[in-house]
């Protein structure tokens, strides 16, 4: 009894400071999310209310902005979503296939000059995109590949995102070698070992690769701006950008509505794969 009454004030003080902390965190979170919430609420407001009402609750809700924005460009917005989806899906497949193959070779097989090539691979992670972008552009334009998806996905089929190779090498190294040996005793060759033993165990690394390839490709602007000049193969970021050009400063509502749709898949991914995503950032530094 005596000890309890002595401890009570401490507990009480701790609870108050904890409550204050929560209030602070929620308040700050609201400030941070306010721009996003404002965009959503603006997209639901009739045009003339958007800048008259800074508040979040629309006094009048309409979906006109969505229907108007969907058809405002040369193609319906779904067309650009499809283009983006194709580029993104192919990029994910390419990165998973090419990077995991290279990673298996670096982690498990032996070959002449392995250390040298591994060092080159590490070095290429730090290389800024801009130093190769001019010659790459020239090369793809000589190959007549401008306005196709090839410049966007071909580098990925060639394991250009070497960070993912490194990520998977590190992961495969944590798997016990006895597994490979057991497979080899059972008569499995390297390909079988790769597909049946290593790959299934690599799921976390593969998931991280897939998630970040998705986000980076979906958000990527520079290379899509460079290589896609024809509105017929515009992806979402490039299409959104022309929105800004064509409609100038006037039509906010439709622009916000389409921005929300553009962010939708990423937001959906975020909700679904939050744990993987955040763990991926925490352990690999990918953002």
């Amino acid at each position, binding site marked *: 009894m005596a000890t309890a009454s002595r401890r009570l004030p401490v507990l009480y003080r701790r609870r108050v400071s*904890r409550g204050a902390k929560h209030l*602070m*965190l929620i308040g700050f*979170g609201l400030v*941070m999310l*306010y*721009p*996003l919430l*404002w965009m959503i609420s603006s997209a639901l407001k009739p045009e003339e209310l958007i*800048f008259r*009402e*800074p508040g979040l609750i629309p006094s009048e809700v309409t979906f006109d902005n969505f229907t108007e924005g969907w058809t405002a460009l040369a193609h319906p917005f779904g067309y650009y979503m499809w283009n983006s989806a194709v580029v993104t899906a192919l990029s994910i497949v390419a990165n998973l296939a090419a990077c995991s*193959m*290279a990673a*298996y*070779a670096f982690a498990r*097989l*032996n*070959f002449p000059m*392995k250390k040298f090539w591994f060092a080159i691979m590490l070095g*290429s992670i730090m*290389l*800024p995109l*801009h*130093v190769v972008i*001019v*010659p*790459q*552009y*020239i090369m793809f*334009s000589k190959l007549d590949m401008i306005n196709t998806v090839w410049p966007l996905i*071909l*580098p990925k089929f*060639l394991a*250009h995102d070497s960070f993912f190779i490194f990520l998977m090498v590190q992961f495969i190294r944590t798997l016990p070698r006895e597994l490979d*040996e057991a497979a080899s*005793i059972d008569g499995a060759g*390297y*390909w079988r070992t790769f597909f049946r033993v290593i790959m299934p165990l690599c799921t976390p690394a593969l998931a991280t690769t897939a998630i970040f390839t998705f986000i980076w490709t*979906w*958000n990527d*602007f*520079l290379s899509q*701006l*460079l290589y896609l000049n024809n509105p017929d193969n515009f992806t979402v*970021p490039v299409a*959104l*950008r022309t*929105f*800004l050009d064509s409609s100038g*400063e006037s039509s906010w509502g439709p*622009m916000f509505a389409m*921005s*929300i749709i553009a*962010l939708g898949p990423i937001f959906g991914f*975020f909700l679904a794969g939050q744990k993987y995503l*955040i763990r991926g*950032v*925490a352990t690999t*530094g990918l953002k």
Partner: protein
Amino acid sequence: MVDSLSLKSEVAAEPSAPRRRRPAAWERSRRKALTAYVFLAPWFVGLFLITIGPIAASLYLSFTDYSLLDEAKWVGLDNYTKMFNEDPRFWTSLKVTTIYVVVSVPLQLGFALGLALLLDRGLRGLSFYRSIYYLPSLLGGSVAIAILWRKIFGADGLVNSVLGLFGIQGTSYVNNPDTALGTLILLHVWTFGAPMVIFLAGLRQIPRSYYEAAAVDGATPLRQFRTITLPLLTPIIFFNLVLEVIKSFQSFTQSFIVSNGSGGPNDSTLFYTLYLYVNGFKEYEMGYAAALAWVLVLIIAGLTGVNFLASKYWVFYGDSK
């Protein structure tokens, strides 16, 4: 070059697998090397075709005058001397980018560390807060958010309607050379969630017993932060610092969208990469753009090098000293 370890284990495995005659050791290692090259084939092709080849080409192009239509014409160091002596926009873009990096990276990391500390101590709802703060990092690089930013800081955007409630008349912040860069810095700071997550992971590595021992010795929370948390966190701070400097020096989308590709008003948001893009892909000055790219590489390499050298004096690796 044969890995003796794995070879030994295979030899050792031999007696237990008597069913089939196994090929000789040297043949197996040769087969292994061949297989490795097959697995690495895509990467090798990519390395030469889209990395090393282009690096060499870009170095060559940086000494030429090339417009994609005519033959590349060798001009020696002209591109570089032009850049340093006759191109004020090069210096402007360098200045703008430097201000952007120097102001936004410390602010961003400061917020990231501050919130990571607030979130660290077994707070309820940690994953909820972490998600909320992380979300902007995920979206921040997209065109959609850059558009939103342009609107928020436009003449009749969110900021001015909020200020209007207090009777303050604002301007269009994205069209004012004094404030345009500030809006981009704010956008960058807004994405502090990613480094925050890395800080949180780092904080979790610090053994609780250190704090308990310090508390027994009567150390105040502030002192615990200074003598335990901060030193043990320096490798993570360093990691985030290097990463963010490299990343933000290469920012492009935000300045492109907010200034509609112009770097304006008055070149106040002319990021280095935007200037490179304008030279290479608007004016088709491919040689000059390649030279700009090489200067960027040298700057980034230099900054990273300086970061690593300086790290000796402030980064504390637990058992190295």
